[in-house]
């Protein structure tokens, strides 16, 4: 969910391919052991979960008050007002308040499934190909029309048959998870009655349920979609996608908040849904306004000046400032659900040499980056995925040892002419896992120079060149990371890093031995937790053996808010719900 469409485009094909490789009869959601299908009709966010680390935990102490407007700062603007057409985290965060799916993640967690518009988690057939959902009754869309099985069918069919011009650039996540039209792994979606929907897959797909928790698979009002010409092949011509007309005309879902207005580049305003179906978890706030702040300093300035009440991510180095300001609070998201690494293209010299890669691993003083740029709010990575991920194990990757790095370079036999490395960094961005890419790049370069490399810097704009060029392997060495969509090993090791396109490895790294592919296939198609454990463990060992890229750290990006903001539940994937949030003032 962190990458924009360019980078993710290529990853798209992989998931399907990988899923197709699975042969097991009863796929289990690989990343969610606790998410076994259950008939217990628990509601989303019934209480603040004990597992959710929450600086706003004092919320529980006092009774929530209703009313008020929360002004929330995000790193960027919404792109389009239809979640099915967007892949960026800002649109998802905003639209996730308004539009709900059949299932969702338990607030504060990264992988615990709960039913939302389904009255319970679905029943899955023994062959893992048929999912049957029973829907909640009496739920209405924000335009007053009924939520029912037909609406679900309409929404999935709409994306399945998306116009060609939208398929790759817009309906990214649908393509990534299922594929389009005849090529789709989704064979059919049918309503057997008003409150029952049956999904049929062509091959088992273990990430089906976790993927559908994303807002991209949310259910929107068919009436409004049709009225707003939402399926226009050119979204710039669709009033629905452009957010025109206000409540009931655009971004029409079933959530605790309703869309009100979007002034591009300036703000998006949502208002409380007074008729929310889950009365126990209705919104406390009257309204939320999301404001884009490209620059974290500007965002913190706005927070300190009282222009905004909540900031999604602040620079970790500002945590002290916020803590020392009694009118503000830092919101610690607890578990990390991201990774930050130094990408190497193993097809390029000298990175084809294992000893050079290891030397780089030993050259980097990762803890010093954490101290300098993360205010300690990160852990040195000892894996290619964060510790909270299912099946994680420590891999004893190289740690800071410049002497060893030098001796590895010496013994590698790589000629000195190849020790000049071209190093790309993104010039205009800060990400939750890399708050200051430029500063980090300089520090890393400094460490590499210290052991005998020389560095030539190059840079690209994040949105335009960096992600796309990096993803197709144009950069020999660069900085990149990933915030999880869900906390499964497949989301990091495969989707993020080392997916295969057929038998070809991700061109970004050009690394993919056959044993790794076999391990991935086994993991995705595993039918038992033990089998999954075994497969993913093997995959991690292979990666540790080859050290194709250099993992650096896993961070816990802090949010900040005015002291009176209460009840907010943070989570490592940064896709948080605001219905529990209230203002104590």
């Amino acid at each position, binding site marked *: 969910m962190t990458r924009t469409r360019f980078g993710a485009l290529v990853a798209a094909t992989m998931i399907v391919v990988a899923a197709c490789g699975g042969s097991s009869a009863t796929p289990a959601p690989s990343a969610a052991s606790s998410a076994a299908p259950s008939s217990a009709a628990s509601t989303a966010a019934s209480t603040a979960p004990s597992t959710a680390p929450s600086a706003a935990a004092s919320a529980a102490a006092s009774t929530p008050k209703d009313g008020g407007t929360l002004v929330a700062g995000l790193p960027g603007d919404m792109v389009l007002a239809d979640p099915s057409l967007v892949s960026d985290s800002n649109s998802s965060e905003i639209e996730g308040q308004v539009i709900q799916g059949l299932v969702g993640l338990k607030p504060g967690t990264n992988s615990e499934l709960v039913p939302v518009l389904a009255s319970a988690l679905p029943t899955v057939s023994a062959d893992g190909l048929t999912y049957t959902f029973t829907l909640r009754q009496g739920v209405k869309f924000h335009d007053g029309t009924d939520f029912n099985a037909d609406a679900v069918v309409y929404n999935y069919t709409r994306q399945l048959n998306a116009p060609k011009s939208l398929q790759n650039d817009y309906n990214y996540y649908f393509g990534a998870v299922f594929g389009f039209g005849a090529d789709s792994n989704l064979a059919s979606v049918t309503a057997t009655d008003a409150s029952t929907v049956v999904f049929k897959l062509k091959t088992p797909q273990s990430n089906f349920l976790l993927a559908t928790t994303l807002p991209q698979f949310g259910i929107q009002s068919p009436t409004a979609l049709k009225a707003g010409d939402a399926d226009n092949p050119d979204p710039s011509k669709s009033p629905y996608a452009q957010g025109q007309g206000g409540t009931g005309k655009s971004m029409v879902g079933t959530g605790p908040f309703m869309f009100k207005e979007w002034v591009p580049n300036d703000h998006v305003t949502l208002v409380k849904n007074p008729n929310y179906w889950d009365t126990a978890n209705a919104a406390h706030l009257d309204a939320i306004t999301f404001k884009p702040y490209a*620059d*974290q*300093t500007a965002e913190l300035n706005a927070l300190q000046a009282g222009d905004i009440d909540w900031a999604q991510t602040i*620079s970790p*180095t*500002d945590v*002290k*400032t916020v803590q020392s300001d009694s009118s503000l609070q830092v919101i610690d998201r607890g578990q990390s659900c991201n990774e930050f690494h130094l990408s190497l293209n193993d097809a390029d010299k000298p990175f084809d040499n294992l000893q050079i890669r290891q030397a780089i691993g030993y050259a980097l*003083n990762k803890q*010093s*980056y954490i*101290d*300098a740029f993360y205010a300690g709010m990160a852990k040195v990575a000892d894996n290619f995925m964060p510790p909270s991920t299912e099946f994680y194990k420590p891999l004893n990757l190289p740690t800071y040892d410049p002497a060893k790095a030098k001796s590895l370079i010496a013994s590698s036999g790589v000629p000195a002419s190849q020790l000049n490395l071209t190093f790309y*960094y993104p*010039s*205009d961005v*800060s990400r939750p896992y890399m*708050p*200051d890419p*430029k*500063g980090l*790049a*300089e*520090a890393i*370069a*400094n460490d590499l*120079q*210290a052991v005998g490399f020389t560095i*030539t*810097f*190059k*840079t690209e704009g994040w949105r335009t060149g960096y992600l796309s060029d990096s993803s197709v392997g144009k950069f020999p060495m660069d900085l990149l990371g990933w915030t999880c969509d869900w906390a499964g090993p497949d989301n990091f090791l495969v989707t993020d890093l080392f997916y295969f396109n057929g038998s070809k490895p991700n061109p970004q790294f050009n690394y993919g031995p056959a044993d790794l592919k076999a391990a991935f296939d086994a993991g995705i198609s595993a039918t038992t937790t033990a089998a999954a454990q075994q497969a993913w463990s093997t995959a991690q060992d292979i990666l540790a053996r080859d050290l194709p890229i250099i993992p650096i750290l896993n961070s816990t990006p802090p949010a900040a808010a005015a002291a009176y903001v209460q009840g907010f539940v943070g989570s490592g994937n940064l896709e948080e719900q605001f219905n529990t949030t209230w203002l104590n003032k």
Partner: protein
Amino acid sequence: MTATATPARRTAPARASRGLWRDALARLTRNGPALLGMFFIVVFVLAAVLAPVISPYDPIAGSLANRLQAPGTAGHVLGTDLQGRDELTRILYGARISLQVGVISVIMGLAIGGTLGAIAGAFGGAVDNVLMRMVDVLLAIPGILLAIGIVAWLDRGLPQIMLAVGMTNAPIFARILRGSLLALREADFVVAARSIGATPLRLLLRHMLPNALTSLIVAATLALATAIIDVAGLGFLGLGPPDPRTAEWGTMLTDSTKYLREAPYLIFFPGIAIVISAIGFNLLGDGLRESLDPRLRR
């Protein structure tokens, strides 16, 4: 009668040999603000030239362990930056970049604008008309936008920045030179030279250009101030030199805004450096104009 005139005659040669430049210099040395400006510039140039001599530190390599030492810490008068490098050293080397970028960009602007202006001013008529419309086209595009466009188009890098800043100044130089030359075409001494059969090229090179030069020198000095500010502006918009280690004041300042609260001095020092050097060139430019323009005697 001849005898009575002798005293005046005897002093006359001395007077003639002083000439415009010596007069100007004499006036300049009496101009307090201009002297202050020159002082700033001398400090600036010395910093640029002597940076490696003055500072024992490496401007590029640092050590995170050493980072964010407050100003006044032993050995670090201005403290250390985010990478643990000595800030004073970075400021000194930054003068180097600013001087280099400023001077080369102004030379580029002079080369481009000067050529256009010289041709237009020397020939007049249709040539002038066409060239000046071209200059109008360039002038109609807001300066920094032109610079951003050029850098975005030609990719980031110091040479591109120099060209971009040079291009924003070129139309100004072209206009000034053209204006001077057109006026000079009708000036008595040029008409006189023409009437005794001086060739057009000789007229241009020998009689007109040296006289037009004064105004160009003033414009170029002022343009140095603008160049330093514009380069910093490009740095602020993220279009500075691609190597983040480059000690460019605008980029140093902008990168430090993330650490405004932790280390405000990392914004303050480059900011002061930019402002002081810009003030230096502005003061000198104003002073030069006043001393080179004999009409300006207030």
